């Protein structure tokens, strides 16, 4: 009993310290963001889009039109399939109008498209972060030949014109599961940018006193990495990942726009914009709706990432 108590205290000490500091830092950042109208608006919009994506089946059940349901009554076949009514066929049934020719509900396609976009972007971010952190820390922690190998691979991947290369790979690979393929391809070309930063920071952290102290007191490599280095990378990882998500949403939309991303009938914003190209002169709404959703989503995420970075920078400076 007498021996157990101190050991529990010793364990609780560093843990309390580790969770205590970031929690207050997190609260401070959240506080700073709440006072910034741009950050609040961005967050609001993102919550709306995420809710739309999650509740897509529910909302389509209310409106009665799924993402792939044709509605011949909503389009005018005499006018070459243009939507009936103003603003691209906005009506009580089709809140954001319909697609020309086949009359598919745009709201439903936007919501299901958001699911695809967000899923791909978040999966790609998770995978990129994982790869970036693992390889970046391996290179930074062990240095020597591990660093040599990883750094050369990163140079090699970063030398590629990634957009053209992604397109090339996606166009030559057998169809298969496009979404998974997109995530893999985006991550393979994305991780070096994160790993480079992680590597640099790990290298400086390894030589800091507290890591030296932990090492001297007999901590193993695993303990050093997970208890000492990783928690110190947290703030820069948060900033990098929030700024990566809008990039990946844009990349996914761009690839789908070019026809090598998500394949129909799965809806995707980029794909919707691509198919609206032939119609935008006569039916601008068809283009405007997905265009606006894409732009506002990327903008909100970018603004949020930018403000989080500003708040963390200010925190580090003080």
């Amino acid at each position, binding site marked *: 009993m007498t021996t157990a108590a101190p050991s529990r205290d010793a364990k609780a000490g560093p843990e309390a310290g580790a969770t205590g500091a970031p929690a207050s830092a997190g609260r401070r950042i959240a506080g700073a963001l709440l006072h910034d109208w741009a950050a609040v608006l961005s967050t609001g919009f993102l919550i709306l889009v995420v809710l739309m994506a999650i509740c897509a089946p529910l909302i389509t059940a209310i409106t009665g039109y799924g993402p792939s349901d044709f509605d011949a009554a909503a389009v005018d076949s005499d006018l070459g399939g243009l939507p009936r009514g103003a603003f691209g066929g906005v009506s009580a049934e089709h809140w954001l109008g319909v697609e020309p020719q086949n009359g598919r509900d745009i709201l439903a396609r936007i919501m299901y498209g958001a699911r695809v976009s967000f899923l791909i972007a978040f999966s790609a971010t998770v995978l990129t972060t994982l790869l970036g952190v693992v390889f970046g820390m391996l290179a930074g922690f062990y240095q020597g030949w591990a660093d040599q190998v990883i750094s050369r691979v990163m140079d090699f991947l970063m030398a590629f014109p990634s957009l*053209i290369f992604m*397109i090339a790979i996606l166009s*030559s690979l057998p169809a298969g599961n496009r979404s998974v393929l997109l995530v893999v391809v985006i991550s393979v070309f994305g991780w070096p940018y994160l790993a480079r930063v992680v590597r640099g920071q790990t290298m400086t952290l390894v030589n800091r006193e507290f890591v030296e102290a932990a090492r001297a007191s007999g901590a193993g490599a695993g303990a050093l990495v997970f208890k000492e280095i990783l928690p110190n990378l947290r703030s820069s990882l948060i900033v990098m990942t929030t700024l990566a998500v809008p990039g990946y949403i844009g990349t996914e939309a761009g690839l789908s726009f070019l026809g090598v991303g998500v394949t129909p009938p799965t809806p995707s914003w980029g794909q919707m914009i691509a198919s609206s190209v032939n119609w935008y002169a006569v039916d601008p709404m068809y283009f405007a709706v997905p265009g606006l959703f894409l732009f506002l989503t990327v903008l909100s995420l970018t603004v949020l990432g930018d403000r989080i970075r500003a708040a963390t920078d200010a925190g580090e400076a003080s």
Partner: protein
Amino acid sequence: MARYLAGRIAGLALILFMVCLFTYLIFFQLSPDPAVMICGKTCTPERIVQIRTILGLDEPFLSQFRDFLVGLFAGRDYGSGANLIHCPAPCLGYSFQTSQSVWEMIVDRLPVSATVAVGAAVLWLLAGIGAGLLSAVKEGTWWDRTLMGLALGGASIPNYVLALSLQYVLVVHLQILPFPSAVAFSDGPVLWFQSYLMPWVVLATGYACLYARLTRANVIDTLAENFMRTARAKGLSPVLTMRRHALRPALTPITTIFGMDFAALLGGALITETVFGLNGVGKMAADSIAKNDQPVIMAVTLLAATFVVVGNVVVDLVYTGLDPRVRIR
């Protein structure tokens, strides 16, 4: 210097070789049947067999790859007899869909891509650096906040969305500009300028926003340097202090980024060219993707990678001339 250059060129060659190998692997090994892909949509079984033998697709991978590399430097003949197709060096491949050597196709379209890239680069450097400077000098004011807000917004518009919006407003609705097309300069400078204006603006917007943010950050950092205090303590005029002591340190790092961005663009602005129907290398790549014309896609990938890798070396060389602290041994 000579040793450094030799080293850099060797490294460059190695990376390009790896890129070749990698692209070749993807197109000819991962693809289920390259001959079917290469042949295109209107294709007969005989034609597929013919392509397979012409390209030597039944041979082992390494010998195929060797033939490809030899073709790059010495040119190569496809098939024999009446079907003989000669592909002079640098032979990047032969498009069986357009019956043209890929190199010729690229050379035909490179001027359009270069025009798009150069015009956009001029625009984004002027706008981006200008806005960044103004923001930095007026840090914290209404100017700064407005410009940086715009920069965030501009960087968030996917360029095809911007392209289509501009086209709708300026061409379809207001009819100020003609529909963009690859008009030659000799057809009249005004028409040429009008035709390329939208592609330039669209391509430049994203970069300009990025450069504005970079310039602002660099200038603000430089203004806080000790040597700026020295310059003021010396009694130099504010104009000289800014122009000589702040601008050069602040803008030199941007040349590196500019070099890389510009090199990447020379390989074709895929989306912009496609949206505006400009017949450059980028549009050719997009069309080839749609048609699955694999030799062309592969060649464009290689070309773009070459631009990036060579651009990297050029940028490093230029940088040593711009920053006296970096010297080649």
